[in-house]
């Protein structure tokens, strides 16, 4: 391991301090980041009366497992989770296909006006989502030329996500780093651009494709206002919007129970794949 801020010799000298500090940090972090989750899981088991109790109880006195059952059944969490996964999967697919081919064209095929197009795309990076929310919403309600409404259709989430300049930029930068000679060699062998993309460029680009996928999934997972607006129907809601809509007319502990259940799948997936996700995120985003 290469040295960091504090050298190994210094560390050895301050061993007690190091272990003391480490213990402190581990304890504090556990309390700060796991503590609330514990509170959430057990809070959902408390009765309405117990939640209002002073001081709050550390363990639920009379665990109400019914709250979890109520949350699952009443909110139709299975459906909400499915929707969210479906939207995320579609977003990944659309971004991978359309953004990758666009970045490939901009990086390697370089058609006329390519730079102008890239510039127009990058310009959208400067515009925060909130600024465009109203006209985008109007557009989705009544698509220009086609006069279609995408409300309650998954395309209302998938297609706008393709217009992601940051991902195109990441992909293009990565493709730029692939030497042109490799491409040239492929062309000489008579390979078409599509074939070159598929069998030469993409296999070399796995890390960046992973990063783009993670970004797409996180974006769908974290987005709130857009799905709130374009997916107004209870059947099409995402998990976050579903819980929000549900909270208005439901006892607190059932809302929290729903929150716990909603968080479980991602937390589990994260724990299983954390090594890949972590390394993918750190290396990928830095290279980009």
């Amino acid at each position, binding site marked *: 391991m290469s040295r960091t801020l504090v050298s190994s010799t210094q560390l050895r000298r301050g061993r007690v301090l190091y272990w003391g500090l480490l213990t402190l940090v*581990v304890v504090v972090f556990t309390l700060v980041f796991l503590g609330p989750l514990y*509170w959430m899981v057990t809070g959902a088991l408390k009765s309405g009366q117990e939640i209002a109790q002073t001081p709050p109880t550390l363990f639920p006195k009379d665990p109400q497992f019914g709250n979890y059952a109520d949350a699952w059944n009443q909110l139709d969490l299975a459906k909400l989770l499915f929707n969210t996964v479906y939207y995320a999967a579609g977003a990944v697919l659309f971004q991978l296909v*359309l953004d990758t081919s666009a970045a490939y064209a901009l990086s390697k095929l370089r058609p006329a006006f390519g730079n102008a197009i890239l510039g127009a795309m990058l310009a959208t990076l400067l515009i925060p*989502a*909130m*600024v465009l929310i*109203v*006209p985008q919403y109007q557009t989705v309600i009544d698509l220009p030329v086609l006069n279609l409404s995408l409300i309650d259709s998954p395309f209302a989430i998938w297609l706008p996500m393709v217009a992601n300049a940051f991902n*195109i930029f990441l992909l293009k930068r990565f493709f730029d780093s692939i030497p042109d000679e490799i491409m040239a060699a492929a062309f000489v062998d008579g390979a078409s651009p599509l074939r070159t993309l598929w069998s030469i460029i993409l296999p070399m680009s796995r890390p960046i494709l992973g990063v783009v996928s993670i970004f797409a999934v996180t974006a769908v997972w974290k987005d709130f206002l857009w799905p709130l607006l374009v997916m107004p129907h209870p059947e099409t809601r995402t998990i976050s919007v579903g819980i*929000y809509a549900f909270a208005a007319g439901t006892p607190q502990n059932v809302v929290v129970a729903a929150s716990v259940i909603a968080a479980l799948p991602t937390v589990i997936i994260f724990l299983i794949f954390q090594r890949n996700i972590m390394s993918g995120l750190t290396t990928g985003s830095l290279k980009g």
Partner: protein
Amino acid sequence: MALLTAPAPAPVAEAGVLKKRRKLHDDLTGHGFLIGAVICFAVFMWYPMIRGLVMSFQRTRRGVTTWVGWDNYVRIIDDPSFWIAWRNTFTFTGLALVLGFALPFVVAIVLNEFRHAKGYLRILVYLPVMLPPASALYLFKFYAYDPSEAGLFNALLTAVGLPTSEWMQSPAMTMPAMVIASTWMNMGGAVLIYLAALQNIPGELYEAAELDGAGILKRIWHVTVPQTRLILALLAMMQIVATMQLFIEPLILANGAGTQDSATSVAYLIYQHGFFQNDLNGAAALGVIMLVVLAAFSAIYLRLSTRGDS
């Protein structure tokens, strides 16, 4: 292929016309690959940009759209909540810079020094990012920020003998409370990026600084910060743009406006005008104002950060 024709010497025999035709064909291929993304950009980005601007000068009532000049802007700015929303948004952005931007950096520096439990700590920090935002915020709303003595934070404060707070009900605490919740649920991403940046700093630099007699703080200031400067600047900018769009925190933690607009953000005001007051045109005007403010801000930021370079 532009790629092939430019660097590689073209066959001498090839006639000019043929070359031109080939160039056209290659362009078409390139645009064929581009078309999907370009359509999406056109429909969901470029067109809405223009449409938003147009809408902000129009008014639609009972299906009839008329041009109204600056009326929407005047109405939006005259709204007593307008300035409050900006003040709140800037307060949030400022506090979030102190807490949400600096804290992850410090955490990353500390984590990077540990030789043990690193994986565990990294997972811990990133765990809240995995929660659906609404879930995380309800956790804060119902338990942490309960204004009575039964609330988690108030119980902790009482336990250590500090005065309790009414959190979201107290106008003074609304913004800090939202920053705390927001930082808790979002800082994992920033910590990971900093960690990666820290790992790329060559160890020799610290070595050299240490030989010069620099202490830990001095080494951070003279080695760590300059070495991660680009990523710091980038994240600061992203953080500012993100926090200016503060929406879900007031919506869930403060049921929208909070007490007397103490939680109203500009983004929430856009939502309120557009979807509660049935005034999409006013909301579009507010969107344009937000864009102008952010553009002005970015310009100043760029100016400052480039000046720092020279």
